[in-house]
């Protein structure tokens, strides 16, 4: 990812994330979070994690935040009033913030900037192809599609993620499916009482379909 783009998207992500916390209007906060998530997705894509980046937009910006906005609009939540801050708590919060800043600063200080660019860690296509072919010969399931793409010098992210997911994380995937089913049932039960909750169940269903 070129440096100007990286700076642009990280500024977008961080700036709008701060705006989420600083804004008192809930609709504005939700929309700032959407922009922040889109910037984050761009950062993911810059790290050649295309699938995760798109899923970030699809799930967070496309489904979860719409749900938030929907609830905010339906419940007609007004702006929060300005309130007095508890002195002790504010001081504590600032102290923790300064501590974290020092921690991050310390890590950055010690960081070896020699390997800070993605160009220094290029994807090693030849090594990957040989290893994958050896794996395929010894009976481990390897997507031929992805290997062919690697041979053309393309990183076929989705095929590789899918391969990993269904080879090594199959049980986890099924557990997630059960979890989402339970969440859907829970949401429907919670929302059912007098009038049906405004579409809260849809997100659960959405996720179930994606996994």
């Amino acid at each position, binding site marked *: 990812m070129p440096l100007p783009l990286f700076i642009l998207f990280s500024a977008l992500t961080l700036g709008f994330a701060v705006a989420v*916390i600083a804004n008192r209007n*809930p609709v504005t906060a*939700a929309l700032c*979070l959407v922009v*922040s*998530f889109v910037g*984050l997705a761009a950062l*993911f894509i810059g*790290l*050649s*994690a295309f*699938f*995760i980046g798109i*899923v970030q937009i699809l*799930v*967070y910006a496309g*489904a*979860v935040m719409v*749900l*938030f906005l929907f*609830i*905010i609009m339906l*419940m007609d939540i007004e702006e*929060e009033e300005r*309130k007095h*801050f508890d002195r002790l708590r*504010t001081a504590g*919060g600032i102290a923790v913030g300064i501590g974290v800043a020092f921690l991050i600063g310390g890590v950055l200080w010690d960081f070896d900037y020699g*390997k800070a660019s*993605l160009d220094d*860690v290029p*994807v*090693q*296509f*030849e*090594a*990957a192809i040989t*290893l*994958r072919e050896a794996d395929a010969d010894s009976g481990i399931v390897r997507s031929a599609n992805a290997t062919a793409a690697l041979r053309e010098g393309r*990183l076929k992210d989705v095929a*590789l*993620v899918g391969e*990993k*997911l269904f080879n090594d994380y199959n049980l986890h995937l099924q557990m*997630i499916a059960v*979890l*989402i089913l339970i*969440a859907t049932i*829970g*949401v429907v039960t919670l*929302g059912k*009482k*007098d009038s049906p*909750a405004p579409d*809260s169940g849809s*997100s*659960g269903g*959405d*996720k179930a379909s*994606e996994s």
Partner: protein
Amino acid sequence: MIIRRSALVILMCLEIMLSAANLALVAFSRFRLEAGLPDYDGQMLVFFVITVAAAEVAVGLAIVVALFRSRRTIDVTTLTSMSH
């Protein structure tokens, strides 16, 4: 939590925190090559975090709606009936 009292905004901030962790995971998965390719184990964890977070938001929002229905407010500082 310190300056925001709306349960909805607290849920949003939770998402930001999870996203920060996700970004770190994806960045490390890209920089730590495994067999010449990005380490997809890290991205798997991100994938699961995103899925679970979506489920968590659905449940959280349902709870907020139920809360709003019974109390007509979602200000977390007024929900103190358990402490008396």
